[in-house]
């Protein structure tokens, strides 16, 4: 809760920086603020017993609209860590653009939306969270105003996103019509009390909400916007979209379906299983034929969305599926940040065509090694975090009726390994176009060292994150 307030305040502070002329110190200020918000997740984690009543009081004072329980705090932690890494990656973006304070404000407001999505416990806060996250992203996607691809990305994202929001609202209205409450616990209570005797339009509402959120996480039949938007947006904004936005949307999806609609898992489970199957097949096969690394990462993010959806689909009681999704989103976010940092440094001008990676091992061996670790993690090769992420997701799915998805996932992961290796082969075995070494600035070097070590570390000792709720 405190973290949310800190980030909101930081966003407003960023807008004041232009007037009161402290633009120069804004960047370190934002980094410190995000760290402070992150520290607050630890403060709120284990409230002492006399504190507990105060926490309940605070929650009650907001009429149970938002609830920072341990699950919400854990996902907030992942989002804030990723955001911190992202700000280091994006330091250049904030130096070169005009109206930098507005950019800071928009990114921070998007973070507010992301934190709300991890912690909502009412349909109104869900909808507000989705919109607060989306609207700054529409603008940021179009933020390179002179570039026609960026304009197209922003416009496409806005039109499609508004359409999805319409579906979300329609779904919320139908669910409210059946249950008479916006409260997540109230809806769950209604379902378990009605013993299957719920009106048909309630299910229609649930499925509409599923469609809207599948759009936000770019799962398969609703993924058409993703490659164009990811490719057209500035590279750093693409990195933000595929990490923070995705983690937040998954936290929301998980909270809604595994808490609110937990008892009717077999109704939405079938549809979600089909969505996952389609995402796996379409994304991996299309990604294999891409020539742009940025576009390839967009398709790979669709396939990662499918993996995280599997955790939601398992719909287990207790913390099994939650901690596996948490681990997956952390591993995926850190791996993505690392690979986008390399992509940003390697191809500043040609928009991520794979030829830019040719002979990178000669031009800058450090970048090549970091890219290898990041891609191996995304592909799910052992010792890296990505392997255990996939492993934990698979174990949650065993014992559910959707075991057939495991077969699809294994086969498509093998196809996935092919396109990740295409980049590795380009880096190590193709002759370089120019012999000029690629320069990397200090902050990016530090960022790459941290993310690479982090990927290896949580791959070696995954227990710390998997056992976080015990």
């Amino acid at each position, binding site marked *: 809760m405190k973290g949310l307030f800190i980030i909101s305040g930081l966003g407003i502070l960023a807008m004041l920086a232009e007037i009161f002329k402290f633009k120069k110190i804004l960047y370190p200020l934002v980094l410190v603020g995000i760290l402070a918000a992150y520290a607050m997740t630890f403060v709120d984690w284990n409230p002492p017993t006399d504190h507990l009543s105060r926490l309940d009081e605070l929650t009650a*004072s907001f009429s149970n609209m938002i609830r920072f329980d341990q699950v919400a705090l854990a996902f907030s932690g992942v989002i804030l860590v990723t955001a911190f890494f992202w700000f280091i990656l994006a330091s250049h973006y904030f130096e070169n653009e005009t109206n930098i304070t507005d950019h800071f404000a928009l990114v921070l407001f998007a973070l507010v939306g992301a934190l709300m999505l991890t912690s909502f416990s009412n349909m109104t806060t869900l909808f507000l969270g989705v919109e607060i996250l989306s609207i700054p992203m529409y603008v940021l996607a179009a933020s390179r*105003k002179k570039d026609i691809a960026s304009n197209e990305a922003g416009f496409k994202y806005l039109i499609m996103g508004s359409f999805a929001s319409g579906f979300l609202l329609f779904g919320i209205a139908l669910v409210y019509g059946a249950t008479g409450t916006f409260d997540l616990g109230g809806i769950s209570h209604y379902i378990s009390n009605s013993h299957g005797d719920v009106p048909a339009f309630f299910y229609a509402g649930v499925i509409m909400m599923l469609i809207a959120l599948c759009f936000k996480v770019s799962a398969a039949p609703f993924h058409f916007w993703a490659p164009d938007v990811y490719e057209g947006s500035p590279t750093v904004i693409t990195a933000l979209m595929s990490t923070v936005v995705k983690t937040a949307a998954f936290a929301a999806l998980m909270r809604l379906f595994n808490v609110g609609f937990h008892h009717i898992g077999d109704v939405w489970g079938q549809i979600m299983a089909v969505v996952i199957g389609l995402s796996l097949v379409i994304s991996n096969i299309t990604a294999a034929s891409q020539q742009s690394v940025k576009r390839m990462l967009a398709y790979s993010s669709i396939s990662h969305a499918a993996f995280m959806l599997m955790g939601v689909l398992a719909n287990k009681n207790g913390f099994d599926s939650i901690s596996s999704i948490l681990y997956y989103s952390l591993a995926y976010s850190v791996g993505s940040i690392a690979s986008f940092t390399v992509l940003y440094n390697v191809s500043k001008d040609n928009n991520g065509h794979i030829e830019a990676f040719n002979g990178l091992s000669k031009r800058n061996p450090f970048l090549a090694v970091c890219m290898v670790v990041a891609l191996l993690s995304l592909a799910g090769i052992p010792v890296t975090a990505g392997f255990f992420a996939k492993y934990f997701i698979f174990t949650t799915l065993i014992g559910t009726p959707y075991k057939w998805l495991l077969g699809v996932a294994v086969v498509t992961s093998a196809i996935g390994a092919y396109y990740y290796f295409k980049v590795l082969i380009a880096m190590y075995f193709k002759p370089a176009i120019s012999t000029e070494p690629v320069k990397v600035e200090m902050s990016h070097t530090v960022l790459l060292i941290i993310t690479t070590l982090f990927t290896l570390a949580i791959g070696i000792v995954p227990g710390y994150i998997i056992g976080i709720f015990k």
Partner: protein
Amino acid sequence: MLGYTITQWLFGILSFLAIMFALMVVFTRNPINSVLYLVLTFFCIAGHYLLLNAQFLAVVHIVVYAGAIMVLFLFVIMLMNLNQDTEPQKTVISKVVAAIAGGLLLFVMVGALRGSEQLQIKQYGHSDIGLVKNLGNVLFHDFLFPFEIASVLLLAAMVGAIMIGKKEIK
């Protein structure tokens, strides 16, 4: 009259008109006519709010939507000189696909809402539920957090609109 109460008659007429005008919004080729039909649709919806005892909401709906936002729409259309019948022709296949997709959604909605007339209404509102006083009570007690956080949403939208619309000044 025919076994229906006056409220039910009003509901039927308002619903029929709302659907008719909404269809006209889509079917007219002239954008100005579209906007005017949309205004009429909003009036019908406001009538529905009145039937639901939400008087304040009905008035605000007319003032904000029909009054302010639709006038803005008209201004934009007139300023950008869009008031010609220059809707681009769509291909047959996209029309067919759109018809199938829309038809399926209609099918699902009709199927889902069939039989719901036998449902019991859970909560009856009081007759003064829509008055400003009660609305304010709910807004500033139960919905305090969403109400406050909506300011972040509006701020983000404003900053974004200005950022996109403004000329680049170094």
